[in-house]
């Protein structure tokens, strides 16, 4: 009998659908987005490090580029990703061992608060120093 089955590719995108969903779903989606972002960054980072192979000149010119304010802003975004992914990962780990399951929403809130505070402090250091 016919039915409305979604094709696999469309199904696979459905983790992204946070409409009318609760906090935990947002945490999950955020974790995935930051996770994908960090994997992309890992390879970008390796590519940048490859500049070292081309000797001091190309590396040093990159470093001076990296000191530009707009580049530093990218650093803040990277840090945000790391903090969100890392701290949410802590929540997933704890609940996965049956710790703090009842308080998972509060746990997420507190951890994200920590992320925001840490990010603020880091941004001050990056732009200040």
């Amino acid at each position, binding site marked *: 009998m016919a039915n409305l089955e979604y094709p*696999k*590719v469309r*199904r*696979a995108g459905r*983790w992204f659908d946070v409409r009318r969903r609760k906090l935990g779903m947002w945490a999950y989606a955020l974790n*995935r987005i930051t*996770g*994908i972002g*960090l*994997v992309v960054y*890992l*390879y970008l980072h*390796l590519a940048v*490090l*490859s500049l*070292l*192979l081309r*000797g*001091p000149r190309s*590396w*040093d010119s990159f*470093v001076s580029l990296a000191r530009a304010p707009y580049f530093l802003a990218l650093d803040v975004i990277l840090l945000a990703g*790391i903090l969100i992914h*890392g701290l949410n*990962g*802590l929540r*997933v*780990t704890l609940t*996965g061992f049956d710790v703090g399951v009842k308080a998972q929403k509060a746990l997420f809130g507190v951890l994200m608060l920590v992320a925001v505070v840490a990010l603020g402090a880091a941004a001050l250091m990056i732009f200040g120093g």
Partner: protein
Amino acid sequence: MENPFAQEPRASSSWLWQVITGVGLVLLLGLHFIANHFIAKGGLRDFADVVAYLRSPIILVLEVLFLVVVATHAMLGMRALLLDFGLSERAERRLSQALTAVGVLTVGYGLWLTWVIIH
């Protein structure tokens, strides 16, 4: 009746490794940051700084460990994500093999890079 959900109990491994490497990353990333920005005097400002930095044996071990752990965590994460495409068992095995290969290549490239820079 054949139970469609009965399987070999082996699935906990990937989750456990994800958690172990995740916790490892939190620690290593902290050390990575501290080493990069605080211990190296005035930060890694130019090429010579980087080379000197990597020649320190403790730093080298730390960075290599970091590379291995981050690659494992990333590949396990990608696996969890790609499983969502509803793969067949064969495709799932292929995926695991492919991701292992990518992870090994990543680590290999990183090691080679480090070796070249040091020398």
